[in-house]
């Protein structure tokens, strides 16, 4: 019987706030590392804010439909920039296809950014200033 209560609570929460918002939240951690050297100063930004860390490190970003820009700099090396596209999360996709609930769910998830998911980890390659530009 308790399982029905839990299921009912989750369904109600999904109805009220969007499945992905409830299950996955509106923030996510992203591990950032640099190669061949670590210790770079890295800034991360999207339409919802800006965060920073030293590599290797982890930042917790607000999820968004916008592109995530990761920029790392270290003395003696050229700045490395990586642009990361968000993906639609499976939970958000599931919530959106539930009859009747879907349209509310999709709207809530889209407005909170919870529907999207960035990769869990990114690696940026630092290059010497005189080296030819590397393909991303």
């Amino acid at each position, binding site marked *: 019987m308790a399982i029905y209560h839990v299921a009912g609570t989750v369904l109600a929460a999904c109805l009220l706030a969007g499945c992905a918002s409830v299950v996955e939240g509106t923030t996510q951690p992203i591990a950032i590392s640099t190669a061949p050297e670590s210790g770079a100063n890295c800034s991360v930004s999207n339409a919802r804010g800006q965060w920073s860390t030293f590599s290797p490190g982890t930042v917790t970003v607000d999820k968004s439909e916008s592109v995530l*820009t990761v920029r790392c700099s270290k003395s003696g090396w050229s700045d490395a920039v*990586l*642009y990361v*596209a968000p993906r639609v999360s499976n939970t958000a996709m599931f919530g*959106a*296809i539930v009859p009747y609930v879907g*349209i509310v769910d999709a709207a809530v998830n*889209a407005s909170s950014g919870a529907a999207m998911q960035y990769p869990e980890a990114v690696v940026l390659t630092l290059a010497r200033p005189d080296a030819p530009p590397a*393909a*991303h």
Partner: protein
Amino acid sequence: MSSFRLLIAAALALSLSACADSVSAPTAVQPLSAPSLASLRVSDISADAAAGVEMSDGDFGLICQKVRGYIQAQSPAVLASGDGTQLKMHLHFTRFDRGNAFARMMLAGLGQIHIEATVAFTDAAGAPAGTYTVSKDFALGGIYGGSTTVEDVEDGFAKSVAEIFKPKA
């Protein structure tokens, strides 16, 4: 029965041709000359958008990154340093519609994604060396349409831009 199979095959072909990452042939407005293509070196890739086209710096950066990546994979000599015709590539976006994922999921044809740009090449002196237009549309529906984002369609767009450097048979 055979006409039914033909219909299915035609529908499948139509669906595949409109996949998010499929190639859309670039249209030459002022084609690069053949000698240029053979010894072409692209030293810089930049992007901007026409008035009224909403794109962020992140959008420009991601598309340039993808274009560079697909050129590197397909025609690495174009991005290599060395002798050759040094050109700059500039993408001028005239259309960038993100569409609506929920509308696409509900019905194919609604909430379409459109990307359209002029790809211009200039030499070191800033003189025009070639111009192409590239457009990529996405109109599929269902779960595939709903889970496809403009960034997925950018892959097809970037592959289409890289086609400019592909040796013609």
